[in-house]
């Protein structure tokens, strides 16, 4: 069934869009990532103009994150206090990121920067996560029921402004979460994604939060960052396609529910390995596209 999208101004098969939404929704529920880093390239692939794809996927991320976070709320796997602290930094970061984005757009190099950001960040994060989770699995196998791992005392624990995050079982300074939120908000705005794939590892490895709480909290935070991004794109660039978003989110919300169920049944280490592999796959694909000589050297674009 073909459907004409009013803002994208192309006709696309409705079931293809439902499918894309569904796949990304499953991943979103499983890993607590918004899925923006997957949905945007997939939309390019079916012929949606890049500007519309970026803006509209932000809107779809809002829906799948709301759906996912509600499931996590019920299981009490959301650290609200941490989420709000992260969000505070996140909104400031988004505002800065959009300024950077517009500056680069004026210079005509925004595509390159976005791709490089993807390759660098996905590469680093994917690689670190993969190594860490393989090590964790080896440890678990080597010493079945061994001693619980001692909490490491990092430099971040010595900063002032200490706060208690009960759900995460942490007593740390508010400065690192605010900084993480800002960083992710900034990158999210530049890369046109919610930033979950950066947020999740940052929460685990930088803040030392338990994996189960990380996903719900990340989703909670993403709702607002992605919402802010959607509003900004709709207001300044008129590139949010409601009809496209609608089809994606119908598939997405269903997928997110399925994904959340899968995620709860899987072991945390397994979950991390799969996320790491997925992140690395996207990174390699984008990296190769930069290195291989393109078939067509010219491209048309606004």
């Amino acid at each position: 069934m073909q459907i004409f999208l009013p803002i994208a101004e192309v006709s696309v098969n409705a079931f293809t869009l439902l499918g894309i939404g569904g796949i990304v929704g499953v991943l979103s529920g499983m890993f607590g990532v918004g899925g923006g880093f997957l949905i945007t390239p997939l939309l390019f692939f079916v012929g949606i103009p890049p500007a519309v794809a970026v803006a509209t996927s932000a809107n779809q991320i809002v829906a799948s994150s709301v759906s996912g976070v509600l499931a996590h709320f019920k299981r009490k796997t959301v650290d609200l206090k941490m989420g709000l602290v992260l969000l505070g930094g996140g909104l400031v970061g988004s505002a800065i990121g959009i300024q950077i984005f517009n500056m680069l757009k004026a210079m005509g190099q925004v595509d390159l920067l976005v791709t490089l950001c993807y390759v660098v960040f996905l590469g680093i994060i994917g690689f670190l996560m993969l190594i860490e989770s393989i090590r964790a699995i080896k440890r678990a196998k080597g010493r079945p029921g061994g001693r619980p791992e001692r909490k490491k005392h990092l430099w971040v624990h010595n900063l002032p402004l200490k706060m208690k995050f009960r759900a995460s079982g942490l007593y740390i300074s508010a400065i690192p979460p605010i900084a993480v939120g800002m960083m992710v908000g900034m990158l999210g705005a530049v890369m046109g994604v919610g930033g979950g794939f950066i947020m999740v590892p940052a929460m685990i490895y930088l803040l030392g939060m338990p994996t189960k709480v990380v996903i719900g909290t990340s989703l909670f935070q993403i709702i607002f960052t992605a919402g802010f991004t959607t509003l900004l794109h709709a207001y300044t660039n008129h590139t949010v396609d409601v009809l496209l978003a609608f089809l994606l989110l119908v598939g997405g919300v269903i997928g997110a529910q399925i994904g959340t169920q899968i995620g709860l049944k899987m072991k945390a280490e397994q979950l991390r390995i799969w996320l790491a592999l997925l992140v690395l796959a996207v990174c390699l694909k984008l990296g190769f596209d930069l290195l291989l000589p393109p078939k067509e050297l010219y491209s048309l674009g606004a």
Partner: protein
Amino acid sequence: MMTRVFALLFALLMLPGAGRAEEVVAALSQSRISITANFDGSEILIFGAVKRNQPTPEGEPLDVIITVAGPEKVETIRRKDRRFGIWINVEAQVIGHTPTFYTVTSTRELADILPPLTDSLWKITADKRILPGMRGLPAREALIRLRKADDLYRTREGVVTLSEDTLFQTSITLPSNIVEGGYTTRIFLLRGGEVIDSYGTTINVQKVGIERWLYNLAYQHALIYGVMALAIAGLFGWGASEAFRILRR
């Protein structure tokens, strides 16, 4: 003296019986195309007849060429090159008004019926119609190549049917990723490599219904549109979560 002779000759050529022995009378199956939610391209039937006030001339056969040009747009074309080992856009060029869609259809092979001079004069083929002054420039060639690859610039030879040297007809398919605006349709009547008559009309392509409404809202009330988009997203997320909770019971 000479100028007067030329003026007389010219006047003679312009007389109805001499210069315009054959005229084209044409119509379209529709002069307005509405883009609705399930719009998936459109086919327009173009048909017409050759009106004569003289018997059909002997000798050179009659041919018909029909062109349809979409709304014009200024495009930015970018060139990639290898810098520091990676392929990046190194050059951007703004290219003046070019039609977003251009199709040429004819009764026979264009090479047989359309000499280059006539082509240049009437700007019929894409090569003569699309920025002919920039011919040979890589950016212009790339633009035509890219549009051809997207099937936006086409040449269909031999698809116009001409019967009894009088009635002609063809159908033009407009793509689904169509741009709103006026589509200029030109019909040329040729004999012996000369255009003996031409006819022009416009097809209007417009979004209607929900498509029109959403488009206008997005551009004229962007903030309301944005809030609406968020509300839909939030509602759906919540709705799905509730629906699944009920289902699982």
